C-alpha cells in the first residue's frame, strides 16, 4: 500500500466542516434542531424550489438537504441532484396527464370565468406586503390553533375532483392547434442520459428549464417580457396541485396510481402564426415540481421564445437556445462560480510570466 503524506490540506478540510456545523448550532440553548416536517411545511415554498432544482421528488430528503446546507438553495439542490445520480432507474411512466390533477389552485387570466371557476387557493398574489409582527412571538398553542380552525366546518363535497383544461376550450374552437398531432411525438429527450447537442428537440429544452435555477430563469424571461421579445403572453391557465403517477399493474397491466407529485403547470397563449394554412395561437408551456409559480410562468415564456428562436433564428438572447439552456442550470453555474476560490497559482504564475515578458519588451522598445 503506498504511503500518502497528507499535511495541511485534509486537516483544513476537517476543521472547515466542524466550523460550518458549529454555525448551525450557535443558538443551541434557545432553539431546537430543525426537523424535516418543519422545513417541508413552514418553509413550503423554499422546499418546493429545492425539489424542483434538485430534479428528484423526495420531500423528506429535500428537507434534509435544506437543513444540511443551512438554507443555501443552490447547495441544497446540489445535494439532491448528486443523490439522484446514485439512484437506479426502476421504470419509466408514460407522460402524466395533468388534467387529472388534484387541484389546490387554478386560475386563468385569459377569461373572466372558466368551467370549474377561478380557484384562488393559497397564494401571496393579493397579500399586502406588510409585516405580521404577531408572528414574531408565535406560541405553539397559537400555531396549533390555526391548523385546527382549518379542519372545522370543511365542506368536502363542494369541490370537484378534477378541473377541465382551459386550453381544451381553445382547441375545441380551433384557436389552438389540435392535441392529436402533438401526441404523435417521439419519446421525450432524456437530458440525464444523453448529452445536449444542438439543435435540440423541444422536450430537451423543457426538461432543462424544469430543473433550472429560478433566479436565472426569471431574469432571462424578464428580458423577454420587458422589451427584448414580443411574446405578449396571456396566461391561459395556471394550476397547482397533485398529479397522480400512474404505472401499469405488474400482473393485470391496468394503470394504477402509485403516488402523487405536486406540480405547478402554466400554459401561456402567445401570438398567432400560420400552421398548415390556418393561423392559430401558439402555446408556451411550463411545468415543475412543487409550488413554483414564478418558475412555471418564466418557463412558459422561455419555451415560447425558444420555439420562436429555433424556427426563425434568435432575434434576442432569450430566443437563443444555446444562450438560455447552457446557463440556467444552477448546479453547473454555481459550481463553476465557486471553483474560482480554488488554488490557481500555477496558472497565475504563467500569467505573470507573460505580463512580465510583454512589459520587458515594451520597455526595451521605449529605451531604443
Amino acid at each position, binding site marked *: 500500500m503506498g504511503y*500518502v503524506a497528507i499535511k495541511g490540506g485534509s486537516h483544513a478540510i476537517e476543521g472547515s466542516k466542524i466550523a460550518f456545523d458549529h454555525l448551525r448550532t450557535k443558538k443551541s440553548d434557545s432553539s431546537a434542531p430543525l426537523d424535516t416536517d418543519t422545513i417541508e411545511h413552514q418553509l413550503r415554498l423554499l422546499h418546493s424550489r429545492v425539489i424542483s432544482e434538485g430534479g428528484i421528488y423526495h420531500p423528506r430528503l429535500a428537507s434534509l438537504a435544506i437543513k444540511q446546507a443551512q438554507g443555501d438553495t443552490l447547495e441544497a439542490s446540489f445535494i439532491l441532484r448528486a443523490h439522484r445520480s446514485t439512484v437506479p432507474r426502476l421504470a419509466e411512466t408514460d407522460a402524466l396527464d395533468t388534467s387529472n390533477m388534484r387541484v389546490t389552485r387554478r386560475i386563468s387570466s385569459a377569461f373572466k370565468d372558466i368551467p370549474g371557476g377561478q380557484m384562488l387557493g393559497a397564494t401571496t398574489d393579493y397579500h399586502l406586503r406588510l409585516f405580521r409582527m404577531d408572528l414574531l412571538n408565535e406560541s405553539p398553542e397559537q400555531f396549533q390553533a390555526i391548523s385546527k380552525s382549518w379542519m372545522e366546518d370543511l365542506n368536502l363535497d363542494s369541490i370537484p375532483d378534477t378541473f377541465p383544461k382551459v386550453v381544451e376550450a381553445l382547441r375545441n374552437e380551433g384557436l389552438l392547434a389540435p392535441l392529436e398531432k402533438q401526441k404523435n411525438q417521439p419519446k421525450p429527450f432524456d437530458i440525464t442520459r444523453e448529452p445536449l447537442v444542438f439543435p435540440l428537440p423541444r422536450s430537451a429544452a423543457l426538461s432543462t428549464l424544469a430543473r433550472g435555477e429560478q433566479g436565472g430563469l426569471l431574469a432571462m424571461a424578464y428580458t423577454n417580457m420587458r422589451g427584448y421579445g414580443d411574446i405578449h403572453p396571456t396566461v391561459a391557465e395556471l394550476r397547482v396541485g397533485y398529479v397522480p403517477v400512474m404505472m401499469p399493474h405488474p400482473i393485470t397491466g391496468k394503470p394504477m396510481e402509485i403516488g402523487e407529485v405536486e406540480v405547478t403547470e402554466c400554459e401561456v397563449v402567445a401570438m398567432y402564426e400560420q400552421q398548415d394554412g390556418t393561423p392559430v395561437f401558439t402555446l408556451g408551456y411550463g411545468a415543475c415540481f412543487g409550488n413554483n409559480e414564478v418558475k412555471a410562468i418564466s418557463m412558459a415564456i422561455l419555451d415560447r421564445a425558444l420555439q420562436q428562436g429555433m424556427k426563425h433564428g434568435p432575434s434576442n438572447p432569450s430566443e437563443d437556445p444555446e444562450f438560455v439552456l447552457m446557463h440556467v442550470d444552477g448546479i453547473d453555474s454555481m459550481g463553476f462560480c465557486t471553483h474560482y476560490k480554488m488554488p490557481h497559482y500555477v496558472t497565475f504564475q504563467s500569467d505573470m510570466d507573460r505580463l512580465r515578458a510583454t512589459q520587458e519588451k515594451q520597455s526595451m522598445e521605449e529605451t531604443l
Partner: protein
Amino acid sequence: MSANEQFGFLDEYAKKEIRRTTLKAVAIPGYQVPYSSREMPMGRGFGTGGLQLTLALIGHGETLKVIDQGADDSVNAVNLRDFIEMTCPGINTTTLTDEADLIQSRHRIPEKPLREDQLLVLQVPYPDPLVVVEASEDKRKVLHGEADYSRLLVKLYEDIVKFKEITISHRYPTRINDHYVIDPSPIPRWDVPKLHNSKALVLLGAGREKKIYAVPPYTRAIPLAFQDVPFRVENFYDAKGNRRTCQRCNCDTSFLDEYIDSESGNKIYRCSDADWCEEQLSKNVSEKQLHEKVMLDEQAYDRQVETAPSSENAYQALDVPQSADEIQGVINA
C-alpha cells in the same frame, strides 16, 4: 458521508458510456466527444470531468495519485482522493509518480516523464479553444470539422501586433495529430511539450461542459505558433541571466512556484511538483539522512498539532502582550 454500493460511485450504465466515449476520443485524437456527464458530490468546476474518468477506469489493485497545482496535499486533491478511495475499495493511493497507474491532475503534468503503462487524466474547465472567437457551439463544430482555426490564429496575429508576443499563458491551443486543435486544460506552457509523443495516454475530462477528449500516446501535439514567432515556455531566469532554482531541493529544471516568504518578505521559489521535489531532495541527501529528516518533520508536525491552542486559550498561548505594561516591555526590549 454516505455513498452508493456501486464500485466507483457511478452506475454501470454511466461507466459504460464514459468508457465508450473515451474509446471514441482515443480513436479521433483531439476530438471533443460529448457525453451525459453525471452530477457528482463535488461542485462543477472542482474536477467532476476528470473524476468521472477516473471512477470509470480505475480498478481493484491499481494505484492512484491525485494532484492539484502539482501538490498531493492541496485541498482539491485531498478531497478527490478521499472520495475515490472511499468509493473504490481495493485501490492503492500514492504520492510517488513512479508508483501510480493512474494520475488525476489539475493544472499540471508531472515533471517526471510518464511510462506506457501509466494513464494521465487532466481536469478541464473549457474544452474548446474556439470559444473565444465563436460563441455558438453549433458553428464551432463546423469549424473544428474543417480544421478552420484561422480566427484563432488571427487572435495570435493581433497579439503579436499589439504586444510583440503571443500573450496566451496557460490553456495554450495545441494541434493534435495535425487536425483538431484542443485546449490542453490550464496547464502552464511549460507542460505542453509533454503531450507531444507522450508514452502515456492523456485523457481530458470536462464535467460541466460534458466533453471527453484525448491525446493518444506517440501522437503529434504541436502548440499553435508561427514559423518566426515560436512557442515559448515560462521564463525562470533572473535579471542576471541565471536560472532560478528550487529553494528546497536545488533543482534548476522544473516549473517553480513563486512565494513571498512570510518572514523575510523576499520572493522564494519552490518546485510546483511535490513528488519531483522529494525525489530531487533524496538525491541530495543520503537515504538514512532522508529517513531521519522525514521522521523529524513528522514529529514536529504532530507536536504542532497536539499543542495547537484551542480557541479560548489562543491569546495566552501565542504570547501576545495582554496589558499596556507588557506592550511597553516589548517595545523597550
